[in-house]
């Protein structure tokens, strides 16, 4: 079970300082992620990938493909965003911002 953010099990609610607050811990997590990705790339030659397609067999295909995919996705989305962005009241104020709650 991993994900970039790893919450501390014992974080308490309320104003007390949570483990994540100081930047030093966040750096630890960031470098942890990089370390994990490097290990997974190294594991590559030790298992047989049963590729269906030729390009699937290349070295660490899943890794770099998904990295490029996500990065590309976000960057393209950002530029597209600027083109399609409109103010809140574009459809003559018929879309509120989901303020009131149930």
């Amino acid at each position, binding site marked *: *079970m*991993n*994900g*970039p*953010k790893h*919450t501390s099990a014992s*974080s308490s*609610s*309320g104003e007390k300082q*949570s483990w*994540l607050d100081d930047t030093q811990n966040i750096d630890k997590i*960031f470098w942890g*992620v*990089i370390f*994990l*990705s490097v290990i*997974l*790339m190294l*594991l590559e030659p030790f*298992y*047989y*990938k*049963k590729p*269906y*397609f030729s*390009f699937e067999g290349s070295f*660490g295909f*899943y*890794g*770099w*493909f*998904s*990295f490029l*995919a*996500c*990065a590309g*996705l*976000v*960057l*393209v*989305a*950002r530029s*597209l*965003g600027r083109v*399609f*962005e*409109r*103010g*809140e009241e*574009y*459809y003559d104020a*018929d*879309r*509120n*911002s*989901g*303020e*009131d*709650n*149930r």
Partner: protein
Amino acid sequence: MLWGIPPGLLLILGVLLVPLLPGAWRKAYMTILPLAGLWALAGAETGVFYTFTFFTYEIAPVRIDGLSLVFGYIFHIAAILSVVFAWHNNDTVEQMAGLAYAGSGIGAVFAGDLITLFIYWEAMATTSVFLIWARRSDSAFRAGMRYLIIQVGSGVLLLSGAILMAHQTGSVAFDKMTLGNLATWLILIAFGIKCAFPFFHNWLPDAYPEASVTGTVFLSAFTTKCAVYVLARGFPGTELLIYVGAAMAAFPLFYAAIENDLRRVLAYSLNNQLGFMVVGVGVGSALAINGVAAHAFAHILYKSLLFMAMGAVLYRVGTVKASELGGLHKSMPLTTIFCIIGAASISTPLFAGFIAKSLTLSAAAKDGYPVIWLILMFASAGVFLVSGVKIVYFAFFANDGGKRCKEAPLNMQIAMGLTAILCVVIGVYSPWLYSLLPNDVAYEPYTLSHVINQLQTLIFSALAFALLIRFKFYPPAVNSIYLDFDITYRKWLPVLYKWIVSLVSPGWKSMLQDLRNGLHRMVAYMFRHHGPEGILARTWPTGSMALWVALLLGGFLLIYYS
């Protein structure tokens, strides 16, 4: 079948008692009802029941077989979880609408012919719109109205397709159809609208975020998955669906990446997941159909879990705008954990999503669609980034928006807990879900290579996200909307309509005016002759009466003697 009542109808009729029961009794009754339905379904044997002939058409209201059973189970489970999630909410309209909506969804799944399907199809549309209107805000009302128009429009297309088919083939049975004629095209488009095909998808991101906190959880489960079921039943192996599915899997991610309202992000990612299922239906092999069923099963669970988490945030904080949230993990720790489980179970091993989606992916790969498989890989990486990481990060961990609130209410926690447990259990012990699937195909998800490949995909997309955030490349969440295809019918169409009206109306008004004048003149003319003073109505002197008698006699005699 409980006491002989068809599965869907049990819930729909059961709803009628809901308003009569007070407080706690009502909540208990509303939970027991789907439970009873599930229990009855578990015992039911496959086959077609209650068939009767309507005019000359064979109507089979209840058809139970492998495919419909899976969807039946998950719909009941989703109904139970959504009801538990909505325990805190005692708005009768929403409670009744929710259950009736679930009932009609289940009914549609077991429909054996197009007419029963149409009836439940319309029932789904009309009951679900109340979940949106229950928000009772002006924008919710308008979004609900657009939603209703589109859903009922899909119903109308379905009906016309069914009528055409009945006309051509003489039967309304709902089985595998080929795309040859107009009837099946109409039916496909009708299914497509509810399955959020590209260009028909706008009701999803438009209406779901506007629905009420608990409404969206209901909505997320039934309409779209029922559409997937009918596609799987009606059009398995249709080549076109593969490309449509691929498109559906790709384009919503771009919107989700930059969207501010987190529930709208989830709606777009729901659309993306539907793309996977549609591709599965398109491939159509036994493995693919299994994949579709498994993916639908898992997806209902983790998507409703995510919607529940966001619902809890909306319920407590009052907004799900990424720009105003952040740092909630301190005040809502449990919801954070559940949200992470939800995000993880999209495609992480040991969670539900992984074992379900891999079926579809390998089916696509086996049948040799390299480009499609690549798009699906891109989509699965993207969706993890967008709906998994982004939601969790922006809602709970990003820079502290300074909002403090209590933890989600107990019933919400129970609901989210149950769903999370289900996600994990299914993920870990995959043979249980595989046993439920329609076609029995041997498939082992947990091979070493598959797990490592999947881990690589996930860790590298997380890496991408971390780098983008670290170096501030990630677009800041800003309070604005992004145009989608629905601009056509929400902006351009009205403008066009107003322009046409301005052109036509002067001519139209003058024509009406002439008509009215003509009418008045005619009535006046009539009045002059037939009114009280008119020649015909005045009391005639006796003499003229006698004259008329003589004239008529003369006339008749003339005719007779001529």
